[in-house]
Structures are given as C-alpha cells and as structure tokens.
C-alpha cells in the first residue's frame, strides 16, 4: 500500500485557499488542533469551515483571518464561553454563517457521502432558518400523500475533512479507542473529497488488526496521515487526555480583545515553528501528563 504518512506542512497543502473544510470539533472535544495551527501558520485565506459545534479551532481560525464562511449547528466552547473572535467577525459581516440544526447539517453531509442530491429531515420545520437559507433548505411534500412535510437539505461535499484520532497504520487505517463518536468523524470524512487524519501514534498494521471493529476510517478513505502526539491539545482526546482548562481560559480572556488575541496567536500558534515547539510552549511534557491523569481519573 502507498505510505500515507506525511508531515503537517505537506498535508496542509491539501487545503487550498478558498476551500470548504469539514473540521472535527464539538465544543471542547477532540479537534485536529495541530493541523489548525499549521493552517494558520501557512496563512490560509477564505476558508469555509464546516463543524458540528465548533469550539476553539473556529475562534483561532477566525482571529487569524482564515475564514470567510461558517456552516454548522453552533459555535461554543461550553463552559469557556462563546467564541468571541468568531462572533465579532460575524457581527462585522466578515464571516457569513449558514446555520443548520444538527440533523439538517447531517442530512446535507450524509447526502454528500452517499452521492444523493439531497437528504431529508423533519428538524427545523417551523423555524425561521428554512426561509433564511433557500439555497440549501426547501420544504417538500411526502410523495405517498401522508401529509407530513419534510425539509430537503442539499448535498454538501467539502473539499477536505480533517480529523484527529488515536492511531493509524501507514496504509491509513484510522482507529479510535472507545470514546464518544460524533458525526464529525463518522460522516464528515465520507462526504469530503480528501481526508487528512492526524493521530496520536502511528502503529504497525498488526496493531490495527487486533481490533478491526474499532477502525473508524478505512485506508482507502484517507489521503494523508500525520503523526501528532497531543495533536488535539488544548481540546480533549478521551481516554488519552482531557481538555486543557488553563489554555481555554487564557484564550477566552485574550479573545475579548483583538490585540490580546493576536498576541496569544503569535505566542502559541504563529510563533512555534512546529508542533513540538507548540507543545513546549504550553508547558511541555509535565503539563501534558497532568491532562493524561485528568482523562484517566
């Protein structure tokens, strides 16, 4: 099999300016943060970001000026608050928002994954979000005359999906230990044209074969694999490590002010030349091992 393992920098080249990027992110849960930092370092522009519930990666990308559009169900860092840099950019009209309920977003992506022109849901009926977004949402009738209407949700095919997982082999088989499986890893990669997976560890194929039911992405559906231990930091990667409260709080505070936000990004994202330097900058091995204890508590 072709060796899919590559560097952060090379994998990031799969993401072009103006691309639609389906990004794993669910509040403080696992996001491919090492790749998000690389995209900021490389200065990507005009990205459309697709998330379920976008957390800190959305705010960092917004603060760095990488985004022109957000498609998703919500943006929130849960107890660390709304994403202020993203909010302000939306309020200034710099980032357009396509706001979908979870099932409507999943219907769009599920249709993309399955080569269907549209998917359907009963969610959103009665809300204002349908009329606000007629290009992608439309109420249609039951062709069997049952009387119930449904919402047709136009297929969405992102250019790239980016996820972080526990391990992969060099063929690109990506495996997760038992954890929450959100749609961002279950359906985003199936819908996208290209898939990048960053992983905590690269393993031999025999390790993957020991738990064939825990492969979440088969080799043929993955285009690039990048070794990025603690690659989800400061988001969580259960059961390996918890989210970093300290860094979330520091960002939430910085994000109230554009200059503080820029300084934060300079220090933690643009400054470090590599993922390893980033990890050193947020406390290195000592701090990170305390997150591991947190996750296994």
């Amino acid at each position: 099999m072709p060796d899919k393992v590559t560097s952060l920098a090379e994998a990031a080249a799969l993401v072009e300016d103006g691309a639609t990027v389906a990004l794993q992110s669910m509040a403080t849960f696992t996001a491919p943060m090492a790749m998000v930092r690389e995209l900021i370092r490389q200065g990507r522009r005009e990205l459309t970001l697709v998330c379920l519930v976008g957390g800190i990666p959305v705010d960092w990308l917004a603060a760095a000026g990488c985004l022109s559009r957000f498609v998703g169900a919500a943006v929130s860092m849960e107890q660390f608050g709304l994403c202020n840099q993203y909010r302000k950019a939306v309020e200034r009209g710099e980032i357009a928002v396509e706001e979908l309920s979870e099932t409507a977003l999943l219907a769009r992506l599920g249709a993309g994954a399955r080569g269907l022109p549209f998917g359907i849901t009963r969610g959103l009926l009665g809300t204002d979000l349908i009329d606000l977004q007629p290009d992608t949402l439309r109420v249609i009738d039951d062709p069997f005359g049952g009387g119930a209407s449904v919402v047709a949700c136009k297929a969405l095919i992102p250019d790239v999906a980016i996820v972080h997982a526990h391990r992969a082999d060099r063929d690109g088989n990506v495996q997760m230990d038992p954890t929450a499986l959100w749609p961002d890893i279950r359906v985003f990669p199936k819908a996208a044209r290209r898939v990048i997976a960053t992983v905590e560890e690269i393993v031999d194929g025999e390790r993957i074969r020991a738990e064939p039911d825990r492969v979440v992405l088969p080799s043929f559906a993955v285009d690039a694999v990048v070794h990025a231990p603690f690659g989800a930091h400061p988001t969580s990667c259960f059961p390996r490590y918890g989210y970093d409260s300290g860094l979330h709080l520091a960002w939430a505070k910085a994000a109230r002010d554009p200059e503080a936000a820029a300084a934060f990004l300079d220090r933690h994202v643009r400054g470090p030349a590599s993922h390893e330097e980033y990890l050193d900058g947020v406390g290195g091995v000592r701090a990170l091992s305390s997150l591991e204890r947190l996750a296994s508590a």
Partner: protein
Amino acid sequence: MSAPDYTVDELMIARVAQVFDDGDQVVNGMASFVPVCAYMLARRTHAPNLVWLAGAVGLDPRPQRVPASTLESDLWRDSAAYIEQYEDFWSYALNGRWLTKFMVRGAQLDMHGNANNSAVGPDYHRPKVRLPGTAGMGDMGSIGKRLFYWSSTHDPRTFVERVDWISCAGYLGGGDERARLGLEGGPELVVTNLAVLDFEPESKRMRLRTVHPGVTVEQVQEATGFPLLVAEDVTETEPPTAEQVRLIREEIDPDGTRKAEFRG
C-alpha cells in the same frame, strides 16, 4: 418536609426533576447543569429507572459528581453504552418512541414558546449579537418532543414578546399555527429563577402558574417583556425538601458547579 434553607438553583432543580417520570429517557447537552442535576436527583428519588443519555453519549452513567462540563467525558466515562451520535442517537431521538421530553434554554424565549439561539437584531446576516446557534434545539422543537424550558435569567431581555429569529419552534404565532404545520408536541413548562409558567391551551400564550417563595406576581410580570396570562389559581412553587437539598449539596454537586449560571 421543605428545606430550612435552600437557594433558587436548588428549587429549580427540584421542580425540574418533577417533570420526569420513572422509565422516561432523557438527554442533556452542553452547559446544562439544571437538567443534569435534576436527572441525577430524580434518579436518586422518585425515578430510579430514569434512562439518561449523558451528553448524548453515555447511557446510564455513574458520575461521582457534576463535572465542569455536561458534555465531556467526566460525565459519561462510566456508562453502560457509548451511543454513536450520527446514526444511533439521532435515530433514537427522531423515532418518537423514546426521549419524548426535552429540556431547552434559549437566549430569547417568547410569548408563544419559541426560542432564539441564533442572532439578535433585525438583520440576521449582520446581527447585533451572534448567538451560538440552533444546534439540537432546531431539531427538538420540530420533531414532536414535549419541550421544557429552563432559564436562570428571567428578565425582559430573555423573555421577549417575539423572538428575533425562531431557532426552536414553539407555538410559532400561537393558537393552532404549530398544529397546522403538522408539528406534534411543543412547549409545556417554563421553569425560571422567579416562577413556573405553562401555555394556555387555546391561545398557546405563556401563563404564570406558580411563583417562587418570596416572589410576587407583579415581580414576574415586570421581569417579562410581554403581558403574561396569569392562572386563576397561582400558588407558590413548592420548595425543595431537606433531603433533596442534601442530595444536591452533598452527593450530586458538592462543587457547586450548578451555581455558575446564576451569578450573572
């Protein structure tokens, strides 16, 4: 026997717990301390078989106490099942047989039980305030669920005559508008830091049912941005019992995490 001392969060949690019957299935989302504490309380009291999908992930979790997040793994690491969300959770939620009651909170909540978590201001695309987004409420409002709102900020900014944008379908314009659209279920109860309200069956307008001890009908009306209907038999909200308060303080949430949303 009611507790000798209690706080409004504890009263709300005890009141919300009453909504759930033994054997119901419930789910919670992000930053949902009132529902989570209420589920944990119900499971320790009248509803030991309340089926709880913690964070929409963990089935019947055994958290030692309420953690800092109601979505993350501290809540559900010890569960009977991890429910995959795309296919499994949403099938169970959409089916109609299960998870018939759903708790919601919105940045705005209006006279007819519609909620807004999308945007504030007349221009949706250039909002005064961009809110987090509809997330699951945009589904739950439309798929036949019985909706139960909670709010720790009963004030005219939250309780508005008409939400700027409906991101969770309540009774829409009121009357039979929701039913005419073919939507079943709908809002039933609103539990706030001041009162408990329901919806008058014909007009589907919000109606005051009980005021919390020490709160007057007038205070509730003043805190509400539209004229409230007032039930003829408005009484005082039943305070939590001493045992309920003990369970909340000592077992369920000894860290007091539930109180954060009340500090505002």
